Every structure is written in structure tokens, then in C-alpha cells.
């Protein structure tokens, strides 16, 4: 419980109306895009970097946890205020401050929704490529803090490749202005990049400066159906070695195809083991189409039983509608789902998918797989019903098995969602003690009191062995605190 004096101090910074501390209001700042939930002591909605700095000075003085939050669409628990404290609602800092055509960049406030910047850039003939599937609700501050990805990142790179600089507020309230409207800049350490992917544990990003590139004018899309998953895997590596770089190369496995078909009734081949969606973009329509035909040819040569090229914008939209239906189809197929985000070297994708299928059988769980085959980032989604006794325990075991399988295949825990609370107990297994020690040293240097998004990223219970202990999922706050039971 926050004292009235502290509430008054916060109100003096942001205005009484921007302090949210009613019992129902606190509920609204207790969750993210996962199943976790924990109440903050208060939520505040600042509108300027100076207000953010003033809030952090207060929090630093009092040793209060601060959890920055944009669209709260995190799939890793990154914005759960699991130790209470202050939730910093940055959604109202949502001005696009500048789209600089001469220098091909944008200066935005942290709360600008990704799709809004994309639309504003496109209106100027410019392009902001990173496209997390949450782009209609996620904010750029959160995208930078979590180094968000998306299908297009195969060709265009992830969020970090578009961060030129930022204004960031440190734990004690100091304001840093890093980088600038410069492509090249090696003056000193690349501190702006240090905050990319820091998940709110090192500072509060308030004004990123983002690179924009010319908007490609043409796109072409194709879908390839494979009877065998291994054929699809070989086709992916063959496409990537053929001298073309597709803008997207998306995979759906057999379970995914069937769940989408149940939902969309689009006439998908239910017996197919894999479906690949390929897309290319560029400025020369013939070249763009030519490259998609090359990729389509490679798929046919590697066992695709059917390859279809979109002939017009409507057919293209229909192909993408299938891919976009994955999330709702999975959402409706079960009461709960745990969306994972491992990444493996792309040559290992068929092996990884097979391992996931085995794990599903072993634990009696349905685990459809989809993802970005071109860059090896796949999303096994564990479907479950947490009201069934013992089911959550099996989900936890399956998730652990998936993480470890990814690490064994030379991969990693998370491609684009981040670590948050969901994967933190596996950090030591993934990175080793030396790397984690260096990360802790950086955290200690920038946030000595540990007030910024406490508990996120770093393991809490891994112990001496560094191995994740049972309970890494079950002990999370949704289930212990404000759960359904």
C-alpha cells in the first residue's frame, strides 16, 4: 500500500486524473498478454520525459519498483508488476514527433503504436519494416525494449536494426540522449543498443529515434503445400541458398493447418505436413514476381505437392488471411495456450518440429507449431485447460523440454518475445554463468537499487546448478494470486 503522501507527490507530477489507484483500476494494470497477473500499488500515466524522470527520482528515493508498460501485449510477462510498486503507463506518450524525410528517420514517443508509425511513414513513401504480429496494439517503446521481430525481419532485420538513438531515463531519474539521426556513429560505446532488448530492466525508453527506408512498391506472394515436413525443411534451406532473400518465409505444421481450417474453412489440405508462405517485395514488379517464381520452383523441386502464386491483391490477402488466422484459431481451440518462441539454426527446423511433436505426445498435449522458417524462429503453442487437474504441471514439463531441445539444437529460448518472467529460470542454461554475471554487472551499474522491472530476465530460483527448477511456471503470480480458482 502506497502512503497518501506518495500518492500526492505522484499527483503533483502527473495530475490527479493520471494517477490510477482505485481497486478496479489496479486490476487493469495487473496483466499482460500472458496468463500472469499481479496488482501494482499504483499506476501513473505520464505525458513527458520530464514527468517520467520525476517519477523515477521519487521511486529511486523510496526504493519502489517501477514497471514500464506500453500496450501490455508482452508474451513473456515483461509488464507484470509482480512485486507491486508503480506501473508506468506510457500509452499516452503517443506523439509522432517527427518524420524526417531528408534523413530517413522518425522521432517518436514511446507510446506510439507500431502500425501508426508504419502508416505515417508510408504516407511519406517511407517504410518501417519490423512487424510483430501485435503491431496494432504494441508500442514502439515496448518494441525497442523487447527488440521485437516479425515475419518481414527475415529480409529487413529486427527492431534493433532500426534504432538510431533514443532518449532514456535511468533508474535515478537521469535523462540520457543517445545516438542521433545518424546511420554511422561510433563515438563511444553503443549505449542506445544496450537498452534494446533490456525489457525495461535498465532504463525507461521515452523517445526512440528510428530508421526508415524507402517503401518497396511491389509485392508477390505464394503458398506451397508439402506432404512431408522434412521436404518443407529442405525447401526452406534451398530457397535461402538460391541467391534470393524473401521478405517472409512462414511455416505452419499439420496441427496448425487443421486448426486454421476448422476456424476459417478455407479449403486447406488437412493431410499436408507443412505449408510454406513465401513473399518477396521490391520496386520492379517483374523482378519481384520472378524471384517468387524461382522460390516456387525450388519448392516444387523439393516435393511440394501444390504451389500457388497470388495473381492479384485479393488472392494475396487470402493467402495472408490463412497465416493471420493462426492466432485466433489457436486461441479458440483451447481454453488456455502458452505461446513459445524458440529459435534454432534454420537447417534444424524439421528436427525441432519433430522434437516438439514428440514432446506433445510424451506429455499428452496438443502443440501446433508455426513460425518464421526463414530465420529459424518458431512458435510452438501448448494448448491446455488449466482447470483440469495436473494439466499445468504437464505444460510446465513440456515447456522445459522444448527449451532444452532448442538449446541442444544450437538454438535459443526466445527469438522475438523476450525472457520476462516466463523463461528467466532457463537463462543460465541458455547463456552460461559468465554471460549472466556480466549482464548482472551491467544491471547493477545502471540500477543499483534494483527498482526497474525487478525480477524480469534474471533467474530467481535456478540455484547453484543453474538448472531451472520445477515450478518455474506454476509459481508465477497469476496462479498464486489473482487466478481463476
Amino acid at each position, binding site marked *: 500500500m502506497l502512503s497518501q503522501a506518495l500518492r500526492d507527490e505522484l499527483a503533483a507530477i502527473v495530475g490527479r486524473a493520471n494517477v*490510477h489507484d482505485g481497486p*478496479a483500476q489496479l*486490476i487493469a494494470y495487473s496483466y499482460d498478454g500472458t496468463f500472469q497477473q499481479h496488482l501494482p500499488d499504483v499506476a501513473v500515466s505520464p505525458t513527458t520525459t520530464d514527468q517520467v524522470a520525476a517519477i523515477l527520482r521519487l521511486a529511486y528515493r523510496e526504493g519502489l519498483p517501477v514497471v514500464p508498460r506500453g500496450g*501490455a501485449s508482452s508474451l513473456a510477462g515483461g509488464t507484470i508488476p509482480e512485486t507491486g510498486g508503480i506501473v508506468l*503507463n506510457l500509452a499516452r506518450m503517443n506523439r509522432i514527433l517527427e518524420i524526417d524525410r531528408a534523413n530517413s528517420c522518425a522521432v517518436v514517443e514511446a507510446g506510439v503504436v507500431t502500425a501508426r508509425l508504419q502508416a505515417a511513414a508510408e504516407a511519406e513513401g517511407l517504410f518501417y519494416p519490423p512487424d510483430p504480429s501485435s503491431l496494432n*496494439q504494441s508500442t514502439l517503446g515496448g518494441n525497442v525494449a523487447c527488440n521485437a521481430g516479425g515475419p518481414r525481419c527475415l529480409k529487413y532485420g529486427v527492431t534493433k536494426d532500426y534504432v538510431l538513438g533514443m532518449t532514456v531515463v535511468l533508474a535515478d531519474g537521469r535523462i540520457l540522449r543517445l545516438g542521433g539521426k545518424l546511420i554511422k556513429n561510433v563515438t563511444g560505446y553503443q549505449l542506445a543498443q544496450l537498452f534494446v532488448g533490456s525489457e525495461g530492466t535498465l532504463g525507461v525508453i521515452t523517445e526512440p529515434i528510428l530508421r526508415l527506408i524507402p517503401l518497396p512498391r511491389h509485392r508477390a506472394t505464394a503458398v506451397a503445400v508439402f506432404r512431408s515436413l522434412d521436404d518443407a525443411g529442405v525447401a526452406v534451406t534451398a530457397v535461402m541458398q538460391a541467391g534470393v532473400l524473401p521478405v517472409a518465409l512462414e511455416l505452419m505444421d499439420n496441427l496448425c493447418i487443421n486448426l486454421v481450417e476448422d476456424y476459417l474453412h478455407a479449403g486447406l489440405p488437412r493431410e499436408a505436413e507443412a505449408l510454406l508462405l513465401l513473399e518477396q517485395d521490391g520496386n520492379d514488379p517483374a523482378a519481384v514476381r520472378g524471384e517468387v517464381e524461382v522460390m516456387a520452383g525450388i519448392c516444387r523441386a523439393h516435393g511440394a505437392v501444390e504451389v500457388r502464386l497470388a495473381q492479384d491483391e485479393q488472392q494475396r490477402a487470402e493467402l495472408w488471411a490463412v497465416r493471420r488466422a493462426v492466432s*485466433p484459431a489457436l486461441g*479458440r481451440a483451447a481454453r488456455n495456450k502458452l505461446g513459445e518462441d524458440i529459435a534454432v539454426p534454420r537447417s534444424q527446423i524439421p528436427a525441432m518440429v519433430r522434437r516438439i511433436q514428440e514432446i506433445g505426445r510424451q506429455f499428452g498435449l496438443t502443440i501446433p507449431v508455426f513460425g518464421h522458417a526463414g530465420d529459424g524462429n518458431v512458435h510452438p503453442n501448448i494448448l491446455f485447460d488449466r482447470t483440469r487437474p495436473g494439466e499445468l504441471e504437464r505444460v510446465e514439463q513440456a515447456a522445459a523440454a522444448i527449451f532444452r531441445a532448442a538449446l541442444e539444437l544450437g538454438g535459443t529460448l526466445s527469438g522475438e518475445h523476450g525472457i520476462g518472467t516466463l523463461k528467466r529460470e532457463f537463462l543460465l542454461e541458455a547463456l552460461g554463468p559468465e554471460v549472466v554475471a556480466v549482464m548482472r554487472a551491467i544491471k547493477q551499474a545502471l540500477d543499483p537499487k534494483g527498482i526497474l522491472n525487478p525480477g524480469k530476465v534474471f533467474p530467481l530460483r535456478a540455484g547453484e546448478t543453474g538448472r531451472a527448477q520445477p515450478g518455474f511456471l506454476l509459481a508465477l503470480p497469476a496462479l498464486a494470486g*489473482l487466478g*481463476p480458482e
Partner: protein
Amino acid sequence: MRERVHPLLAAEYDNMLHCVRCGLCLSVCPTYQETFDEEESPRGRIAMARALTEGHIGVTPDLLRHLDSCLLCDACTAICPAGVQMEELGVALRTVLEESRPHSRRERVLRHLVLRRLFPHMGLFRVLVRALWLYQKSGLQRALRASGLLRLLRLAEVEALLPPVDSRFLVPRGQVWGPRAATLPSQRSGDQAPRQAALFAGCVMSTALAEIDRATVRVLQANGFTVHVPAGQGCCGALNAHLGDREGARLLARRTIAAFEQTPEMPVVVNSAGCGAMLKHYPHLLANDPAYAARAQRFAARVRDISELLYDLLREGQLNTAMGPVGLVATYQAPCHLAHAQRLRAEPLALLRRVPDLELRPLPEADLCCGSAGVYNLTQPDMAARLLKRKLDQIEATGAEAVISANPGCIMQIAAGLRQRAAAQGRAPLRVLHLVEVLDQAYCNASQENASPC
């Protein structure tokens, strides 16, 4: 879940649990887009409802505030990947909260009068609207507005919303009007049964905006329909449901169903998006009423918005396309209960594109609520005014000379806003038209070309 939870909340619990908290609904929620406060978002409201159901919070003032501020526009339902039905949840919540809300005696009496006396009794409703007409025609309106008395009584905002009342009401008495068009594609082919439709006349539509009902009848006639107006029909009950009077809504639903059983088989045509959404929702409302559950299913399956019915004709090449030029630059504002609740988005635009000499300018955020939302503009005037301003700014920026919509609430709200703006700037307001009025004009202009009266 809590030990003793309200049965309506218990019934909605599964609906609440469907929310996967992805936050996509934030991108379309009018109150969130105005405030950027999570408690003003659908995801926030679902979480609060769940916390209430599970007993983590009670009925607190902030809970009431953020649940009351929901427009029930259903934009969130339409976009939800997990299938949460927000309007159903919202109506249940309103009903539950209404029971535990501290009401003054005056509020209780007023609620009873409006919800249980006025809307269920069309005769009384018509008398009242007729009195309004008298008020507007007699010069009393001008006198009262000039006197400042309305402001004193805090009725100025309500009064400003009133549309100019039509002088002729359409009273449903079982009328039957035959088709008008001489040469229709289907009749030429001669292989189809004569077209029949039963008009749901509505309460506001059949009185204050009766010309829209008459235009609907004419447009149906022009497309070869025999139009029936079954007696005994009245208000659909949407207002009751949105104000937390679920029982009142059920009462009106049963009556509506019975009235339209007099004209079985034929489609029930509606020109009010809000009513149409409600009529299609009767099966849910009456699901546990053994005498009406199946009848509600049969009834709802017959309900068609006028744009839905005409679009089906258009798609089959059966629409009467003998239209004359209307000479209009307009923009289309999509009513929430058409675009979101009934998912009719492309249909109205496809019809309007067939109208000669109608230039349609795209309206940004065309399907974001205008703030009318039933009586929301009366219960939540501040948020309604913010949304109306946003809408009017966007409408004016299109440079259109008219706004086309398809729902009485939107039409009255936008027209009132435009009137106020025009008066402040000393110019004539933009026109606000119902979709069927534009089609009616087009048919009328065609027959004028043929030198026959319309």
C-alpha cells in the same frame, strides 16, 4: 469463483475467460483511443468483470465508472481473435450492477417511467413525440431556447439533440403495400415467387424519423417487394438492455417475436442498425425461456438489415438499378451496430456505389463510434462530446456536403453536432441522410426521368 455469485455473471464467466489479453481490442475501442487508460479498454473491463466475479473486488465507484463508460459499440467483439462477446457481457454487467447501484428515488421513478412505461407502450411514445412536434412547430422551442430556461433546467444538451420531428408517423396496423416497379430482372425471368418483406418500423424511426421508414417502404416497393407492417410491434428493447433492464428487454423481445409471427416466412427488414443488432440477438436474450427460445431462433434467422437484403439482390443481379443521378458529394459513417455487431461493412458501400452521381469520400475511422450509442450521449455526456467532436472534425475534413449513415442514434447525434457547429459559424449545416433516403432519391429521380411521379 466467489461462493454466491450473481447467476448472470456466472453465465458470462466462460465468456470472460475467453479473453487471452492480447490487447488487439485497444486499437478499436473509442474510450481507450480517447484516454489511453487501460481501465477504459475492453481488456481492462473484462479483467475487472472477472475480478468482480471471482470476488477480488466489490462494486466500487471506479468499477461502476469504467463499466458505465463502455459504449457497447461492439468494435472489440468484432476484432477479438478469441471470440469474447462484449455486448452480452456488457448487458449482463449493467443488469447486475443496476441492482447494487445506489439510486435516488427520482432516478428510480424516472427509470421506471422511461423503460417500463414509455418504450413498451408505443401509443404513449407517439403521444410524446407528437408533443415534441407541437413544441417545435408552435414556436415554443424558439421561445424556450431564447429564454435560457433550458440551460437553467440542465436540459439544453438533451433538447439540442432532438431532430426536427416528422409530422406524419408510420403506425404499424398490419398495412400491406404492393410493389411499384414495373420491370424488374426477376419478373422478367418470371421464375420467382413474388417478393415479400415485413417491416420492423421501430420506435424513433416510425415517429420522429418516419420519413426514413417511408423511404424504406418505397425502396422495397421499387425492388418488387410487397411490404407488410405487422400490427402489435413496438420498441425492440435495445435501450432497456443497454440500461441494465434485461427483464424489460425480454418483455419487448417476446412481443416483437409474436407480432412478426403474423407474417411468417418472409424476411423481417430493419433500417435501424441498433434495432437490427438487437433483433438478431433475441436468441441469446431468450435462451432460457422455454416458450420463446425456439421462436426467437426462427425469428432472428429472418432478420435482415435493409442494406443486407438489398446487397443480396445486388449480388444476384436482381437489384433494381434504374436509378437517377442524385448529385451529391457524401461520406459514409458506419454505424457500430451495423459494422461491428452485424458485420455489415462492405454491403452499404457497395449499394451506394451503384447510385449515379454520388461521390463517396472516404471517412477516416468511419467505424469508430460517434458517441451516440443509444442514450450514451445523455448518460455520459463528456465522453460522448469528445467522440462527437472527433467524428465531426473528420467528417468536415472530407469536404463532403452530406453524411450518410444507417441508424437513428448516429443520425440524430451527428445532425445535432453539425447543427450546433453550423449555427456557431453562421452557415447551413451539412445534411445527414439515411442510406435508404439516398436510394429512394435515386429511384425517384429515375422515375422523374420517365416523367412519372415518385
